[in-house]
């Protein structure tokens, strides 16, 4: 009887133990599921916060003004020599440009326009739209028009383009989705002072579209730099420290004689190494607040150097402008308010 009791108590204990193990297993499974869920939620929240937070338009407004002004300049130069570049007897004539693009999707209506008057009219529209973009007048319409006209010119002018064109098209393409015309613009003046309302006036205040635009510019810059850096990593000169020398002695680029650098071999090699490492790791060091000033400071020095010494003022300037996307709208606002106050005093 007692052995029976003992057996039954043992069985009871055993079943209790089994259920305990089961419970523990369930707990572990539940914990891992909840950990997994928490991780997923965290990731989704991070994604949402990265893309879909609202932000002000002050930094984008600065980019809009600079990019618009640059586009005006670019189109004025095209317009000054419109027949040489796009006319009947252009460097690359219509038959040639159509053939060049016959296998791709790079299409432009300028493939079919030869009349100098029409070409000039095209450039005039591009200049006016770009000027409106810079001034912030009817930006909801002006920026898409400026982007489209520039895109048409870019497809037509294959062969005569360089980094400047890539960056202005990229910036205008992103800016047209934002409310960058809501501050420091004629649009904001019309809305605030004149009390005008309408769909064509950009939304004031912080918006999600401003944030998405900023993020796209930032990520696009990271892509540009990482591939720029990795491609340089393939070259011997970037490793042996002579690349900077061979850049400054390129007579066709040179606008400032920097050959004196050759007397300081350590300096020239260090600057070469600094350039390649900064470019490759830009995408990593530009995000943490601690290292961001280093990434942006280097960008200012490198692109400033390109602008001053390598004769590409336009490209160097627009790259510095694009890098400003990493400056928060609040900092831009504070900075410009400070400048305005100082100018007034």
């Amino acid at each position: 009887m007692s052995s029976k009791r003992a057996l039954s108590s043992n069985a009871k204990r055993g079943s209790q133990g089994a259920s305990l193990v089961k419970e523990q297993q369930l707990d572990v499974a539940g914990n891992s599921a909840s950990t997994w869920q928490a991780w997923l939620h965290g990731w989704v929240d991070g994604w949402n916060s990265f893309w879909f937070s609202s932000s002000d338009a002050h930094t984008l407004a600065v980019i809009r003004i600079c990019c618009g002004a640059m586009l005006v300049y670019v189109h004025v130069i095209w317009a000054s020599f419109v027949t040489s570049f796009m006319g009947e007897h252009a460097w690359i004539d219509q038959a040639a440009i159509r053939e060049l693009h016959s296998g791709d999707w790079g299409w432009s209506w300028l493939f079919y326009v030869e009349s100098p008057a029409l070409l000039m009219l095209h450039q005039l529209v591009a200049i006016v739209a770009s000027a409106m973009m810079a001034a912030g007048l009817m930006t909801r319409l002006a920026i898409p028009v400026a982007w489209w006209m520039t895109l048409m010119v870019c497809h037509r002018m294959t062969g005569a383009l360089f980094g400047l064109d890539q960056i202005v098209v990229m910036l205008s393409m992103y800016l047209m989705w934002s409310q960058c015309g809501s501050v420091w613009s004629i649009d904001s003046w019309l809305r605030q002072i004149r009390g005008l309302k309408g769909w064509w006036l950009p939304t004031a205040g912080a918006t999600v579209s401003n944030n998405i635009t900023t993020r796209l510019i930032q990520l696009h810059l990271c892509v540009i730099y990482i591939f720029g850096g990795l491609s340089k990593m393939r070259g011997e000169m970037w490793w042996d420290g002579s690349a900077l020398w061979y850049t400054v002695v390129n007579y066709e680029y040179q606008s400032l004689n920097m050959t004196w650098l050759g007397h300081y071999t350590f300096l020239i090699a260090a600057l070469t190494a600094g350039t390649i490492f900064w470019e490759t790791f830009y995408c990593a060091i530009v995000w943490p607040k601690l290292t961001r000033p280093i990434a942006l400071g280097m960008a200012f020095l490198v692109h400033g150097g390109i602008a001053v010494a390598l004769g590409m003022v336009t490209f160097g300037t627009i790259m510095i402008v694009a890098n400003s996307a990493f400056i928060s709208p609040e900092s831009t606002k504070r900075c410009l308010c400070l400048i305005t106050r100082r100018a007034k005093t």
Partner: protein
Amino acid sequence: MTTEATTLRETAGSRGGWGLSRRSRIVLSLILVIHLLAVTAEPLRFFTRSSRGTSPATDPARILLAPYVEFAYLNHGYFFFAPEPGPSHLLECRLEYGNSETGRLRFPDKRAQRPRLLYHRHFMLSEFLHQLHVPPVQPRIAEDDPAILAEWREARGRYEMIRDSMTRHLVARYAADAAFIDRVEHRLPSDFEVLTERLPLNDPSLYVVLPDAPEYLPAEGVRAIDAGSSKRLEPSQATEPDRPAEAEEVAQ
């Protein structure tokens, strides 16, 4: 982390606290991912290019997104001054007039093309022609391999089309009877040449006229296969060589 995330979600409200509905966020996220794929597709393919072609891992995205990438002008490799800073390439142009006068022009020219952006446009055009250049091949080699022949014919045809367009531009712009274009390479001097030998950066010895055909090719039959057709031409029927005699003197 969990608490933070939960708090964020709780305070988020019905629109998720991000100013957009859940559905809008999902749709926008998809668009953003596709766009970022398009931004990276071209540089990735460009970067993986070798003599064996491009990486099969990068091709699908680039091919699938080709309409968007190419139309939105996102098709860049971002290879600035890479893999190494190389020599510049210029256009040496010779113009001929009916009264046996000749004129010479060089593109780009810092003094002639101002402002700097205009100069840079001309500089890019001369680099573009150089990039397109494909030398003529031995007719025998080309005819032995139809694939090489087809590839070469297409590439050579493209180069000649752009060169001829540029030539026509020069004739029309300067009212000349004929124009000839040579590609000139401006070699980059070493630090020894510049700092010790005091060689100016634009010293004439640094400019080399590039031949259209490699020197090992015989003069006869170099252009026997025309880019537009596989018809074999007699040497006497071959078109005029690209390089005028004067240019050869400069090269020497």
